[in-house]
C-alpha cells in the first residue's frame, strides 16, 4: 500500500530524514517510533503530499506522491501534529467542510459527518465552537476530519496526545478496528501506545530507521537472553550451585531471596527443570516469573547506546 524508497528531506542544510526505506502492506497498522526530532512528522508530511521530499520516492496505493498528489490525497486521511481546526467554526460545520474538501459526494456529506461524530464520540459537542473545546476534544475533532471520507490510508501523527486515559483506550480501540479495512501509520514516542495498537513498529532516530520488525521479534532479537526471577525462602549456596549446573543457564545472581537467572540466548525451554531443582533442594519456591525486556529498553538501547557502540541489529 505504501512504499518509501530512499526518501531524504533537507531543511536547508539540516537533514531531517535520511534515506528512508520501508513498506506498509494493506490492512497493516504500523507504528512510527522515535524521540523528538527523529523525523516522524516530516516523513508523514511527505507521505501526505503536504511537502515534497528532497530526494527519493514515496508511493501510496500505486500513486507517486510527487507526480500524482491529488490522487494520493484522495485516498489518505491525515491527522497532523497540531489538529488543523478552525476555532471559530462549530464541530459539525467544520467536519462538513472537511468532508467536502475530501471530495465526499454531495449527497452523503451529512451522513458521513454524522457517522464520524458517532464513531469519535463528538455527539455532545457537535454544535459547540471548536475554539471552546478542551485539548482532548480538539484532538478528536482532528481525528474525525482524518476519517470523515473513509480513506484507504490513515496517517496519524501522535493521535492520542492530550487525551485522558479513558479516551486513549477508546481511540486506540478505534484505530485497531480501523486496521481491518484501512492501512494505518501512526507515530508516537509512547511505547505502550505502539504495543497496544500496532502490529509492526519502525523505530527511527535522527532521520534514519534503526529497527523495523514485529514487536515480538524485536524483543527477542534484542534480548541478550531471557531473564527469570526466582523468589525463594531459602537461598542456600547448595541450591544455587545445583541450579547453576542446569544447561542453558548462563548466570545466576542472588539478590537476597531473589535469584536472577539469565538464560543463554536461543536456549531450550528449561523452566520445568529450574522449578524441579529448586523443589528438590528444598529452597521453598515463593514466586517464579519471566522478566521481559520492555520496549522502553529496546527503544533506549536503539536510540542511545546503539550510536555509541555502533553495532547494528
Amino acid at each position: 500500500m505504501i512504499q518509501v524508497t530512499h526518501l531524504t528531506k533537507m531543511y536547508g542544510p539540516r537533514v531531517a530524514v535520511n534515506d528512508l526505506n520501508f513498506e506498509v502492506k494493506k490492512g497493516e497498522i504500523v507504528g512510527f517510533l522515535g524521540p523528538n526530532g527523529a523525523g516522524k512528522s516530516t516523513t508523514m508530511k511527505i507521505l501526505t503530499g503536504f511537502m515534497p521530499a528532497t530526494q527519493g520516492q514515496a508511493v501510496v496505493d500505486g500513486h507517486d506522491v510527487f507526480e500524482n498528489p491529488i490522487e494520493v490525497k484522495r485516498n489518505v486521511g491525515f491527522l497532523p501534529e497540531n489538529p488543523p481546526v478552525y476555532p471559530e467554526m462549530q464541530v459539525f460545520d467544520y467536519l462538513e467542510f472537511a468532508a467536502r474538501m475530501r471530495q465526499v459526494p454531495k449527497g452523503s456529506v451529512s451522513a458521513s459527518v454524522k457517522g464520524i461524530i458517532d464513531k469519535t464520540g463528538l455527539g455532545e459537542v457537535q454544535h459547540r465552537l471548536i475554539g471552546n473545546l478542551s485539548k482532548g476534544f480538539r484532538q478528536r475533532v482532528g481525528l474525525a476530519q482524518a476519517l470523515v471520507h473513509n480513506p484507504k490510508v490513515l496517517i496519524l501523527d501522535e493521535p492520542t496526545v492530550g487525551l485522558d486515559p479513558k479516551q486513549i483506550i477508546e481511540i486506540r480501540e478505534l484505530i485497531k478496528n480501523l486496521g481491518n479495512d484501512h492501512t494505518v501509520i501512526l507515530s508516537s514516542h509512547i511505547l505502550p501506545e505502539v504495543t497496544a495498537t500496532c502490529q509492526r513498529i519502525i523505530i527511527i532516530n535522527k532521520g534514519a530507521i534503526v529497527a523495523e520488525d514485529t514487536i515480538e521479534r524485536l524483543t527477542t532479537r534484542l534480548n541478550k537472553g531471557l531473564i527469570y526471577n526466582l523468589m525463594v525462602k531459602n537461598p542456600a549456596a547448595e541450591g544455587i550451585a545445583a541450579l547453576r549446573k542446569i544447561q542453558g543457564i548462563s548466570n545466576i545472581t542472588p539478590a537476597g531471596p531473589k535469584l536472577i537467572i539469565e538464560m543463554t540466548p536461543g536456549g531450550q525451554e528449561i523452566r520445568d527443570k529450574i522449578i524441579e531443582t529448586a523443589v528438590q533442594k528444598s529452597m521453598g519456591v515463593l514466586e517464579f516469573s519471566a522478566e521481559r525486556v520492555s520496549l522502553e529498553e529496546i527503544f533506549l538501547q536503539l536510540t542511545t547506546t546503539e550510536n555509541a557502540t555502533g553495532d547494528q541489529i
Partner: protein
Amino acid sequence: MMNIFTIARRDFRSYFNSPVAYIVITGFLAIMGYMFYFGFAHYVAQNAQYQQFNMGKSISITDGVIKPLYGNMNLIFLFLVPFITMRLFAEEKKLHTIELLMTSPVTLTEIILGKFFSALGLVLVMLSFTIVYPIILFATGNPEIGPIVTSYFGIILVTACYVALGILFSAMTENQIIAGALTFATGLFFWIISWAASSAGPVWSDVLMHLSLIDHYSNFGQGIVSTTDAFYYLSFIGIGLFLTHRVLDSFRWR
C-alpha cells in the same frame, strides 16, 4: 469549481463568525454615509449659488456628487481591504489549518481562488449597501445612469486588485499585522506612482502613468469603459494571484 466554492464559502462565513466583517462593514458604511450626506448637501448649496450667478446653468449631479462619491469609495477600499485579506493565509499558517487544505485533493489554484472570491464576496456585500445612494439621487434628481454603472464596475476591478495584493502578502507571512501593513503600503504605492510621472522622462512618465492603480480608474468614473483599463486591472489581479501561487509553492519546498 466545486472546491473553489467550498473554500470561498467557508472563508466568507468565517468573516461573519468573527468581528472582522461587522467592523469593516460598519466602518465602511459610516464613512460612506458621512461622505454622501455632506457631499450631497454641499452640492445642493453650491448649485443654488451657481444658478443665481450663472443664470440657469448648473453643475450636473454626476459631476457634483457621483464622481467624488465613488472616487472616495475607491480610496476607502484601499484602507479597508487589508483588514479583509490579511488573515486569509497568515491565519491558516498560524493555526496549521493550511495542512488540511494542502493535504486535501484540491489544487493550490483552487485554494487561492477560493480565498480570492471569499474576500471579493465581502466587498460585494459592502458595495450592495451603497446602492441606496444612487436610489436617493434618482428620487431627488435626474442623474445619468451610465457613470454609476461604470463606477461600480471600476470599483469592483480596483478592489479586486487590492484583494489580490492582500492575498499575496498574507501568503508570505504568519503575521496578520505585517500582511495588512504591507498590503496597504504597496496599494498606496501603486496609487501614487503616477505622481512621479510628471518629473520623469517622457518614456518613464508613460510607464509610470500606466502602472498607476488610480489612473486607470478615472475613465470608469466618467462613464467610459475602456478595454485597456480593464485589461490593466485583470493583469494586476492575475499577476498577484500567480505570485501567490509561487510563494505558497516555494513555502512547501523549504
